[in-house]
């Protein structure tokens, strides 16, 4: 069966003062209908750029898709007209952003902002769109939706604002929902509510979810498959639990073990956390023909500095871009 979304050899270039850098370098992946996938990695590894590339929302004049293809339901998006993209965004693919504080318009009520999307994409009347906005607020579990629909964003808490964002994103029942760090700015109990809501929505509408995060715990709760990004490249891909139990890339291994997780029993023993020394390389190093993680890796050899690793395949679709993946 043809996947819902197929990204092949995608290369996204950013123009910076120092030159052109490939922030996404030869990325391929597929997303099936009703599947949820997570992108993981540190800041500056290209997670959000992937999302913006799919949405056709790369920063104008600075970012562009240099090569590769993105097909949604068999339709090529990289060459689609702006008009067609606008119709796909919202109707078929929609996105919720990290900052619920800044991604809502402060001078419109939340009802107007939800209704605007419905009217633009489905051509409903003002009245019908307003009624549907109330229904959506109710669906994202905002108490007293009828009263709150005329609230302005500042009258709501962070968690409520993120629910409004979800209501807007779900207004046209998209087939793919991209969530870019949807809970990073929120408290953990609120995060739990939002995750619960997203899972419920997924069950009801059968939408696919692409979630971008840096939190392995969140990945484990929310996704079936994960893609670990490093410096614009796919470091590892595969089923979530399999990767957590047996990562095949030193970077993935580092990401999992550098975080103090709460395990099923807390013991008195505490060991120092595994460190991944150093930081993500600068943009000007992106795209070099070598392993970009080499400078932070404790398994590095000359081969890593000489040539970019090719992907090695393991069971159940797990892939790792490391010369020594077998030994990790």
């Amino acid at each position: 069966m043809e996947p819902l979304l197929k990204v092949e050899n995608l290369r996204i270039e950013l123009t910076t003062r120092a030159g052109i850098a490939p922030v996404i370098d030869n990325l391929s992946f597929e997303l099936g209908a009703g599947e949820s996938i997570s992108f993981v990695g540190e800041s500056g590894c290209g997670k959000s750029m992937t999302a913006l590339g799919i949405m056709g929302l790369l920063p104008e004049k600075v970012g562009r898709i240099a090569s590769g293809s993105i097909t949604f339901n068999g339709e090529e998006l990289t060459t689609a007209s702006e008009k067609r993209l606008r119709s796909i965004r919202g109707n078929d693919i929609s996105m919720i952003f990290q900052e619920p504080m800044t991604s809502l318009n402060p001078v419109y009520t939340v009802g107007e902002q939800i209704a605007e999307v419905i009217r633009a994409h489905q051509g409903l009347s003002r009245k019908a769109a307003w009624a549907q906005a109330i229904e959506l607020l109710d669906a994202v579990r905002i108490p007293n939706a009828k009263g709150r629909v005329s609230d302005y964003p500042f009258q709501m808490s962070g968690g409520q604002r993120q629910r409004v964002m979800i209501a807007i994103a779900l207004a046209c029942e998209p087939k793919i929902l991209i969530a870019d760090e949807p809970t990073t700015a929120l408290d953990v109990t609120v995060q739990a509510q939002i995750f619960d809501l997203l899972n419920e929505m997924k069950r009801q509408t059968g939408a696919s979810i692409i979630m971008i995060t840096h939190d392995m715990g969140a990945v484990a709760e929310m996704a079936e498959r994960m893609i670990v990004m490093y410096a614009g490249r796919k470091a590892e891909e595969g089923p979530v639990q399999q990767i957590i139990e047996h990562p095949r890339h030193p970077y993935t291994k580092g990401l999992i073990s550098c975080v103090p997780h709460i395990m099923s029993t807390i013991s008195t023993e505490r060991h120092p956390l595994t460190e991944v020394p150093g930081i993500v390389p600068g943009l000007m190093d992106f795209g070099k023909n070598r392993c970009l993680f080499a400078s932070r890796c404790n398994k590095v050899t000359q081969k890593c500095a000489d040539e970019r690793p090719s992907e090695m395949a393991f069971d159940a679709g797990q892939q790792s871009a490391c010369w020594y993946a077998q030994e990790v």
Partner: protein
Amino acid sequence: MTKEILLDVENLGVRFAVKRGGGWGKASYLYAVDDVSFEINRGETLAIVGESGSGKTTTALAVARLVDAYQGKVDLDGTDFLSLDDEELRLARAKMQFIFQDPYSSLNPRLRAEQIVREPLDSLGTMDEAEKKVIVDRLFGEVGLRPEQQRLFPHQFSGGQRQRIGIARALATQPDLIICDEPVSALDVAVQAQILNLLRKLQADLNLTYLFISHDLGVVQHMCDSIAVMYMGKIVEHGTRLDLFNNPLHPYTSALLSAVPSVDKARREATKRILIPGDPPDPVNLPAGCRFANRCPVATDICRSQEPALRDVKGGHKVACHLVGSDAVSPLPV
């Protein structure tokens, strides 16, 4: 080894006047920190956890006298902090230093790294230049920065390196207590591990005492010896690390712990997620009873009418909940 209490905080209260309803009527207050008491032993770490608005940062600021407390006592190694005058406070602060959350805004962009680290020593005014130079050189080594980086400005460092500068600055006056206010929440996970390891190493080497403020329970679990959980300005539960994580008693603590996503499959399968609906009550018009009652899945009538006091239920494990009996069994197990 006998335990020596380094910091003793009793009945600390911070309130902010809020204007409500207009006119010249009586002032109404928001009690950001309400009757908070705790102790920290020398060489140990107490973590205060809670969500935004719970009062954990205000508690830390009040302990350091960076905001004014209207009641209570802060005793650091025999010095009553809240009764010091300005000049005494300036000198006493040498023993209590602060590491801030945001390494981008907490360093003066116009000063070189060495000047930033030296500033507390300049302010003390008890050393000559040569002595200060020796200390600054040593501090750079201790926090893992290279000597040639002393001449650089903050913008030339990464986030993790900046936080190292902040730590070196906090260590300059050889403090007993360091208050760490979300020291790693602005950092990427890989860099977080570097800073957390550094903090633990420094604690072991220098016998430091930490008051550690965080919302990240994973980090807290790794760093602390004991934990106080705050909700709406009050401590609702207080106990050792093992007490709190293995036997949480307050329903809010249970909800908080159950909400943390985990990579551990066994924990995920064993944990029933406790969703707490709604939002905290209005902090200015607090409800009569327990502040958590309106969201608590097991609240009863007494919870809505009477405020529970924080009391010791089992060997130092304290909880403020009517429903926890003397058998120390949680009414809402995770």
